[in-house]
């Protein structure tokens, strides 16, 4: 069992409250997933020449300023860093491939959680309420966000195994369920040079979809193929820079509920985590049906 939550703001006022509204949703779903949690939040894109990198250090007190200074020195390009607990957001004009290899050479202990012009990602081990407080989720603002509370069933409990998973740029995925063919997907993708970071089944789904998109599919087209390729149980909630997308597998035994108002689209595993949202009793509430793609643009 895991919990998934997502919220897309339809007004500028609601964007300012995104973290404040989403945090109780995530904390409530801590009942479905108490061992780790994560959140990806999207905001207006930064300049095309820049990328922001969400980084995680398992050791508290890691010297992030040293990392920034060494990146500046080694590349001759500018870099800024904002830090919070075990997390940092590095903004730089250094290309993503270069940052990735530079981190692997110089800071093997640093985990790259996400990269893009819009995405910022936090995930860690512990109860979702502790993680939400540690990373001040309620203060976050943005256009849309997806979150996850994990009860591990198939791989270890570590920050790296927490969701959301990312692949490529400005794409993330959270998953409630379990896949039965992640290893065959993984072997197929590894043959194509795609690198995996964990042994988690969700990572296979995430990298499969990103691979399809890198081949020219839209996310919706990639999901149509995923209905055939992914074997197992899943409710998947995904986000890109400009949309939030939800699907359930053919069996639909992992729950989801959608609430739609003029102010927001909210998605959760259970209605009770939406009960605090303004206007929820006037919202259009419905349950997503199997193998239907629900997509909302920012």
């Amino acid at each position: 069992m895991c919990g998934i939550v997502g919220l897309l703001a339809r007004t500028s006022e609601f964007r300012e409250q995104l973290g404040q509204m989403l945090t109780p949703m995530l904390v409530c779903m801590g009942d479905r997933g108490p061992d780790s949690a994560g959140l990806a939040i999207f905001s207006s894109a930064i300049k095309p020449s820049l990328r922001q990198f969400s980084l995680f250090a398992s050791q508290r007190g890691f010297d992030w300023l040293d990392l920034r200074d060494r990146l500046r020195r080694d590349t001759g390009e500018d870099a800024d860093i904002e830090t919070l607990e075990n997390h940092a957001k590095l903004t730089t004009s250094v290309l993503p491939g270069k940052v990735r290899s530079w981190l692997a050479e110089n800071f093997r202990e640093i985990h790259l959680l996400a990269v893009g012009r819009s995405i910022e990602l936090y995930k860690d081990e512990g109860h979702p309420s502790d993680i939400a407080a540690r990373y001040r989720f309620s203060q976050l603002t943005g256009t849309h966000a997806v979150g996850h509370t994990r009860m591990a069933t198939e791989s270890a409990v570590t920050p790296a195994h927490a969701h959301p998973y990312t692949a490529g740029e400005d794409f993330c995925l959270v998953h409630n369920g379990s896949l039965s063919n992640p290893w065959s997907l993984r072997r197929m993708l590894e043959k194509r040079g795609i690198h995996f970071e964990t042994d988690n089944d969700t990572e296979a789904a995430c990298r499969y979809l990103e691979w399809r998109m890198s081949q020219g599919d839209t996310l919706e087209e990639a999901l149509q193929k995923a209905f055939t390729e992914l074997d197992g149980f899943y409710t998947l909630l995904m986000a890109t820079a400009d949309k939030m997308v939800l699907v359930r597998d053919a069996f639909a035994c992992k729950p989801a509920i959608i609430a739609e108002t003029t102010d927001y689209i909210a998605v959760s595993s259970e209605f009770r985590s939406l009960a605090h949202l303004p206007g929820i009793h006037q919202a259009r509430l419905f349950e997503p049906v199997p193998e239907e793609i629900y997509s909302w643009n920012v």
Partner: protein
Amino acid sequence: MERLDLSHLSVRELNQYLHHELPKNGVEELEIVNPNGLHSIAVGLTVPVRIRVLGHAGYYLAGMNQQAEITVQGNVGWSVAENMMSGMVKVKGFASECAGASAHGGLLVVEGSASSRCGISMKGVDIVVGEDVGHMSAFMAQAGKLVICGNAGASLGDSLYEAVIYVRGAIHSLGADAREEPMAENDYCTVDELLAKAGINYSSKEFKRVASARTLYHWNAEAGQEY
């Protein structure tokens, strides 16, 4: 009328009151407010009390119900009235999966749609759904009647035993061993009676009957993988 507020009481406190205090004090009618999608509201009741739940409830509402009449002015989550023994549960909105799962008796009415696996393994309950049901509804249903006023999703009545299904709308597909059969006079009476009890106004003439072909009752080793 007595009013219990779940923004002040926990579900455990509410249910303990309903189990232990209510039978003693003879209350016949009460309201539960602010259900806010909480699970297990009013489970395991054993007395003929009328309860109105004002708002959306979570999983297992009115599970194991005996005698009580419970109306929800909203939607419910998974497994409403699961294992109900008697009484009536009415949902004015929609119900999520497994509505009426394994229920032995009583009447479950969902005025909106019920999603997948509605009436799974039902054992004698009657269920009336005002709109559609999702896939695998009445899977392995053993006894009782499922009346669907809208359409039915894929694999309706898969591995059906002696429960009977009546469908007014279209059937996406029938499950293994389920078959459409002609309506007989007593079928029309049954449907009219259940619709009247549910307060839903359709004519039984619009319904078709689905029941078990009973070919799965005895294992046929020669059938190979045909099942």
